[in-house]
């Protein structure tokens, strides 16, 4: 944001953005689950020019010991940007920004993971930004959530995340780098799609009330779409889900922003009816006595 006045127009005369997207259009997104062999769960997300890798370990023993909670698991997320992820080399290591992002991501996931099922343990989430082009925390959360599901960590739902912002007095969805740098405001969001509960809501810059509502509306629609991509990625586990053409959000009929329920899919991530059609487990999947030596 900052507000560096842009020399070129970010919003074209025809109302589209300078990269040709509509105001409520996302960049192309691909999600791939289970890309790393050594991690318990992993996911790779490309989101426009963003490239983000997430790895999950655990539940496992907590080190250092004093962090462990006898009643529940803790979630320790670590957001890290590679030194080559931005055009000017980023000094490696945690800085103020990545510490903040790590903290908010940890807190977001602690609210969805069934932490009480794993007392005295930690679930470690590592988010590595390989290439950054604005919106990496959202891409990171999206990837981490798929990685958690891939690791078999029980969760209330998958967590999609997306940001909207304001560019040249226009509310737009999913800012890219130029729009983020020259724009006026930014609103990253993460939700539990099934219930519409918020896991993350940050705001940088200023929105009027109407703009905020519009930004949230764009986000809700985008989140629903990302949520579907996440489910698809897991279902096709180990296969990439690709957008054939840029996704165009359906035109809104009427602004129904204040009723988030209206925008939300009413089914769980893997609701029973949603399962593969094979019916029950394969016949050999019965839990039997161990094979004696």
């Amino acid at each position, binding site marked *: 944001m900052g507000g560096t006045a842009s020399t070129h127009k970010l919003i074209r005369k025809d109302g589209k953005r300078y990269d040709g997207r509509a105001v409520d259009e996302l960049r192309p997104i691909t999600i791939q689950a289970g890309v790393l062999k050594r991690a*318990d*769960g992993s996911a790779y997300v490309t989101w426009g020019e963003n490239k983000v890798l997430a790895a999950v370990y*655990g*539940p*496992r*023993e907590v080190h250092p010991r004093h962090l462990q909670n*006898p*009643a529940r698991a803790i979630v320790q997320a670590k957001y890290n940007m590679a030194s080559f992820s931005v055009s000017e080399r980023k000094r490696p290591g945690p800085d103020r920004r990545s510490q903040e992002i790590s903290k908010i991501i940890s807190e977001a996931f602690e609210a969805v993971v*069934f932490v009480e099922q*794993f*007392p*005295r*343990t930690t679930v470690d989430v590592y988010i590595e930004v390989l290439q950054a082009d604005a919106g990496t925390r959202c891409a990171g959360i999206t990837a981490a959530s798929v990685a958690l*599901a*891939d*690791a*078999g*960590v*029980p*969760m*209330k*739902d998958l967590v999609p995340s997306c940001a909207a912002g304001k560019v040249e007095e226009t509310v737009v969805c999913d800012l890219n780098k130029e729009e983020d740098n020259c724009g006026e405001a930014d609103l990253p969001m993460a939700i539990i799609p*099934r*219930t519409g509960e918020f896991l993350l809501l940050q705001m940088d810059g200023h929105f009027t009330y109407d703009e905020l509502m519009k930004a949230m509306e764009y986000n809700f629609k985008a989140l629903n779409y990302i949520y579907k991509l996440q489910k698809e990625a*897991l279902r096709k*586990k180990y296969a990439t889900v690709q957008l054939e053409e840029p996704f165009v959000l359906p035109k809104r009929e009427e602004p129904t922003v204040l009723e988030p329920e209206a925008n939300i899919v009413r089914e*769980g*991530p*893997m*609701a*029973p009816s949603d*399962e*593969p059609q*094979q*019916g*029950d*487990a*394969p*016949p*050999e*999947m*019965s*839990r*039997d*006595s*161990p*094979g*004696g*030596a």
Partner: protein
Amino acid sequence: MKAGPGAFMDGESVFSSCLGIKSIRGDTVGVIPISGKYMPRVGDIVVGKVIEMTPSAWVIDLNSPYVAPLPGSETPWTVDFGETSKYMSLGDTVIVQIKDVNEIRRVGVTMMGPDLRKVVGGQTMDVDATKVPRLIGRGGSMIGLLKRLTRCHIMVGQNGRVWMDGTVEDLTVAMGAIRMIEQNAHRMGLTDAVANFIQGMRDRMEAKRVQREKTNEAAEEQAIMKDRVQRAEELKDVQSKDNMKNEEE
């Protein structure tokens, strides 16, 4: 409707909490997870590893987020204080049973019972704990097949750790087959596929062995030929020297 393992209730509905296969038992809907860590359950027989020793107990790693102490009193031996290392030391593999698990997941294990013991020799490998039922098969069909075809002693712990013993070649086959089962656990008709896989692996190994022998033979022949040539040359040298001597005379 009730929520079984891998699922949870929200109001009247049941939702899955992990990625897996739906399983309905009566009015209970659960999910058999595709991946996940082993959670100790009372009565499970597991393959553990000694990771720590105290004067009166060993600490056993269970391939799980939780470790378990094995006190000397839970073993078939009479262990005097400070003499735990006489019986087992770090890295030893044990077959133990989960005796109790409390609400903060402190786990107690015992080595008192049939088949529970410290194992000597052999190898261990870790597989995903959610794939153990598949590795054992219905009524132990898969594990029986593995033991028969690989000619190995195999012991699968509920925690996903497998102990096995046999010749190097048989162990290689067994490990390959177990990895193959782990990777294809979600497929149907796996038992036949495994039999084929083992046969294929054996064939490949046999072909390699034959190839190796052939190259060895070829190398030997080559060496003999080289030797002969060398000797002939030496002979030539000697003869030419003799000739020169004769000429001088």
